[in-house]
């Protein structure tokens, strides 16, 4: 009988032995080493053991009786020291074991985040039963706090289990959304929301700086300075193949042990299986391919022909009540189209990615009932062209004849609630339409109240109108924001506030976006609306900004950038000019130009020089002029009473006060201002977004001018007597515009849309309202008035933006 030695009693090697013994129990005399003091158990079911939903006994795959039955010599709890290939023996801690054939199944080791404090007691990884028991023990202390580093499959399962055990749990995840390898942003948002409903705190974009404590862990400090108290820290940030033994034995090892399609290593008598293997450059972390490997290896050991091939994989999370599924390749790309279905009331999101009439990827959250069917379609690669229109609804809708999507609405029972806000059912709407002869959405709103509150049922109501009225229904022409939604800017803005939506994925889910992640039109708009509506709460999403706002400089046609520091009210000084001159010399900036807004523009700055340029300008007291932003740009002034014989007021001083008060605020479109010291208007205030004309009697507040593609003189908003009144009026006006303006809508277009009457009513005629807007602006400035240049020059913010591509680091970690 040939001698087979197996190093590692994990799931992969266990399955090899099962298959082998099933074919011929007498073929090999098996010796099985395992560093753990136990045999094979279903490691992926440790999460339910942690949560209490399984017992360890239930997940033991091979017990003592099984090993004894097949006469396996078990050397559990004994580490393998080396492999002597020349003598064909495995050297264990307690002695040698000769082999004819050897299987290396050493699996993987958890990746440890290389931070200070990682060796403290109470900092663990999540890999085996011992780790699980440590967690169960830690949860025994009432009020104990756990921090789980890593929001992937394993980390989230650990978090849910610990929470179920009674711990206060926080999950830290480096990326912008949970399970970013398996889910898109939209599904990641729903998962986060579900976990938060379980009392689990989730922090994304959270970078662990160090683990605090002296002997035992006491907390975790993040890169932004946040400190989280912790009695237990679980690192679940991925795994690394365990290939040291193989490497020391001189086998070919790349990122893992290199195997061929028969799982053979570079030594023909040595095989490897499981997470320690690398096949065609690929690593493995999920169980399905490991079982495929095991099946092939068992056959090969029996002298049969078979080859391992990589198949499509799917992902499921073992957290009861979190129904998610992903499979295939769901990245967006050229030639790919996506179909998205969202049901905000039930927390459902489905996204299918189609390429060449074939389903190539699927992400589902909330309702995964059709997951297997979609997975089969992905694996089969069969054409889905014939069911394209109803594919997203799942298998149930693939009857004999193509189904009209409107049928779903038609099939709703009469008592189905259409408008949740006002409790209006289908029959009430259709009945009223017929009885009253209603033909417009506004009429239906007036008579039934349906769609009159939050508006998310508007689409359904319109479909009911179409069903009831047939061809005579002419839906209102609301211009959608973009192809991702049927809602216009006004509805989106209103619903963000009404439904308290505070992130882009939340807006997209709750307002039923038709795409998974939006587009270049809607993302910047949503980012602005959220910044404007939830100051201090919403975190600016840099990736939803165009390049100029992302790097805080204007890109030029040759790929270099222009840099414009702020000059308050157009005033400067010798030291500022000297600093600018030094910067120009130091960084070989080819052009320097005066702008129309009374500032200095340095043109031709290399992207990688930007932080250093800003650092030097900051050192001279200058901040970003926001010349690239949908934000307050300039406040142009004349010299006013300081120098001018005709000046009536301190126009320069007022301009500087306004600029210093309002800089940093984001607006729907750029905002340019000017203050002229007399009606001669040297600062050209009457063609600006906001202008002030000083008079002997005080200040005339103008707005809604334009001097670009459109030429338009300003409108007079009002007249005030003091600088304080002027500032309050201007700030309230801009805040109203910030709250009502559509993204990229300049002030003069906003005025045209909403009318002078409504603006005056809010800003001029009602002092309380004016103060209200003023206060909201002030509140917003608490977080907005930060110099983005300083953050990037010395604060390390968004440093990746300014690195040449070749220097981007690559972290070697597999999950």
């Amino acid at each position, binding site marked *: 009988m040939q001698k087979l030695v197996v190093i590692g009693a994990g799931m992969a090697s266990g399955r090899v032995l099962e298959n082998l013994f099933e074919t011929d129990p007498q073929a090999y005399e098996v010796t099985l080493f395992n560093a753990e003091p136990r045999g094979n158990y279903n490691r992926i079911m440790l999460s339910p053991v942690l949560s209490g*939903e399984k017992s360890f006994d*239930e997940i033991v795959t091979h017990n003592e009786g099984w090993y004894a039955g097949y006469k396996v010599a078990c050397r559990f709890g004994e580490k393998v020291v080396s492999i002597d290939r020349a003598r064909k023996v495995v050297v264990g801690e307690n002695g040698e074991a000769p082999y004819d054939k050897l299987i290396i199944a050493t699996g993987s080791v958890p990746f440890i985040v290389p931070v200070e404090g990682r060796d403290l007691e109470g900092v663990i990884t999540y890999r085996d039963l011992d780790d699980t028991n440590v967690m169960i023990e830690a949860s025994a202390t009432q009020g104990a706090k756990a921090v789980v580093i890593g929001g992937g499959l394993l980390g989230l399962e650990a978090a849910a289990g610990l*929470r179920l055990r009674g711990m206060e749990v926080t999950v830290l995840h480096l990326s912008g959304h949970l399970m970013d390898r398996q889910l898109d942003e939209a599904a990641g948002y729903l998962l986060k929301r579900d976990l938060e409903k379980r009392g689990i705190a989730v922090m994304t974009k959270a970078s662990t700086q160090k683990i605090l404590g002296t002997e035992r862990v006491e907390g975790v400090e993040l890169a932004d300075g946040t400190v989280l108290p912790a009695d237990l820290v679980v690192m679940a940030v991925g795994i690394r193949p365990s290939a040291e033994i193989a490497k020391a034995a001189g086998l070919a090892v790349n990122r893992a042990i290199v195997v061929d399609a028969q799982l053979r290593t570079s030594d023909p008598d040595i095989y490897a299986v499981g997470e320690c293997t690398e096949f065609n450059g690929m690593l493995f972390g999920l169980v399905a391919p490991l079982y495929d490997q095991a099946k092939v290896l068992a056959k090969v050991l029996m002298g049969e022909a078979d080859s391992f091939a990589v198949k499509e994989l799917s992902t499921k999370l073992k957290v009861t009540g979190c129904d998610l599924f992903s499979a295939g390749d769901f990245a967006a790309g050229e030639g790919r189209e996506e179909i998205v279905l969202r049901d905000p009331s039930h927390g459902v999101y489905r996204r299918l990615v189609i390429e060449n009439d074939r389903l190539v990827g699927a992400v589902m959250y909330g309702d995964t009932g059709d997951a297997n069917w979609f997975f089969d379609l992905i694996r089969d690669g069969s054409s889905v062209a014939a069911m394209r229109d109803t594919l997203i609804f799942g298998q149930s809708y*693939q009857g004999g004849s193509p189904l009209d999507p409107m049928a779903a609405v038609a099939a709703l029972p009469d008592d189905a609630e259409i408008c949740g806000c006002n409790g209006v059912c289908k029959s009430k709407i259709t009945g009223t339409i017929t009885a009253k002869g209603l033909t417009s959405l506004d009429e239906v709103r007036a008579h039934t109240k349906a769609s009159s509150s939050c508006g998310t049922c508007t689409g359904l109501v319109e479909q009911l109108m179409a069903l009831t009225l047939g061809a005579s229904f002419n839906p209102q022409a609301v211009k959608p924001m973009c192809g991702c939604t049927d809602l216009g800017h006004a509805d989106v803005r209103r619903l963000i506030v009404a439904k308290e939506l505070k992130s882009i994925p939340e807006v997209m889910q709750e307002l039923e976006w038709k795409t998974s992640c939006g587009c270049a039109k809607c993302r910047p708009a949503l980012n602005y609306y959220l910044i404007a509506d939830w100051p201090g709460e919403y975190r600016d999403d840099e990736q939803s900004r165009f390049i100029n706002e992302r790097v805080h400089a204007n890109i030029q046609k040759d790929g270099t950038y222009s840099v414009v520091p702020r000059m308050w009210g157009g005033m400067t000084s010798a030291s500022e000019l000297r600093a600018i001159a030094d910067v120009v010399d130091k960084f070989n900036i080819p052009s320097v130009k005066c702008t129309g807004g009374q500032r200095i523009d340095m043109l031709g700055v290399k992207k990688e020089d930007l932080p250093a340029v800003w650092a030097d300008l900051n050192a001279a007291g200058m901040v970003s002029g926001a010349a690239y932003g949908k934000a307050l740009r300039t406040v142009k002034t004349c010299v006013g009473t300081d120098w001018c014989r005709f000046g009536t007021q301190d126009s320069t001083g007022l301009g500087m006060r306004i600029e210093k008060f309002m800089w940093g605020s984001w607006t729907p479109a750029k905002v340019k201002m000017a203050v002229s010291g007399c009606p001669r208007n040297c600062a050209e205030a009457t063609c600006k977004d906001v202008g002030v004309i000083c008079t002997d009697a005080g200040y005339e507040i103008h707005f809604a001018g334009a001097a670009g593609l459109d030429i338009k003189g300003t409108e007079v908003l009002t007249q005030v007597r003091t600088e304080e009144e002027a500032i309050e009026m201007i700030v309230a006006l801009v805040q109203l515009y910030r709250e009502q303006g559509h993204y990229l809508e300049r002030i003069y277009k906003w005025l045209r849309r909403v009318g002078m009457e409504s603006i005056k009513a809010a800003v001029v005629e009602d002092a309380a309202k004016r103060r209200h807007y003023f206060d909201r602006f002030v509140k917003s400035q608490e977080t907005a008035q930060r110099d983005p240049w300083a953050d990037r020059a010395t604060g390390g913010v968004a440093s990746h933006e300014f690195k040449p591509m070749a220097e981007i680091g690559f972290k070697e970690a597999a999950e």
Partner: protein
Amino acid sequence: MSALAADIPTATFVEVTEVWVPKDGRLVWSSGNYGALDDFAAASEKQSFAKGEGLPGKAWEEARPVVLKGFDGSYFLRAEAARKAGLTSAVAMPIFAGSDLKAVVVVLCADDAVRTGAIEVWHEEAGVLMLDDGYYGAARHFEWVSQHTHFPRGQGLPGGVWAANAPMLMRDLGSGYRFIRADSAGKAGLTTGLGLPIAVPGGKTFVLTLLSARGTPIAHRFELWKTRSAGPDGAKEAVLTDGICQRQGPLWDDETETTVAAWQGPIGQVLGSGIPLVKFDSAAQTAGYASMVAVPIYRDGAVAHIVAWYY
């Protein structure tokens, strides 16, 4: 698993399980298992309840699970028959699909010094789950501890069911809960816990738990099924997601799915009809045990899960 089979106790915590369904404005008997309590069975099968009448009618009217301990002088209509049968307590669980009552499941228990277990109703109050009421048999200390315990969302069996809005089956209650009722659960011999979200109109949160003890188990076998689409034209099937059996051990299989189609066997019947079911005297349908109960768990008006217990 033969050792387990030999160890199956005969005394169970629940004496009677019955299902009442609405018909012509009243609740009428649909199915039930009364064991040897023939007289009580006879009294029950001819009974019906108006809304608000008796225990099933009260669960219907109040749209919430109801625990009743002590029948004499109560609204329990079959008090005399129950007294003769030795039954002392009952729990009624309404099954709603949206606002429509589909059925009321009633379990009745008998008190003695040894029967231990728990049937608990938890409700949300001020952001945590508080004990509404429960029947614990002889587990008096555990009853007291439970009355003084609350569960935040996501914690423990009730909090986990609440957060997941799905049934859960917990093992090793004595060691599993640790500080949450753990010591007391361990001392009471409680082993397996089944938690069910009870959907009621109006959006109130109720969780019902069945905690089984080794000596006088509520059941010897528990199964959790999840429903999903199974083909064109709206066909449905249920897939076994978790389960444990004293004879067969774990029933779950993370590689091979066990499924049943609508109307196939008792689980399929519940899937097809949407109405709870009590089966007995049919070993093939009760996994070799004397009786089984299968209950649909509704979500958004449709059957999302089916839970079954066998005893």
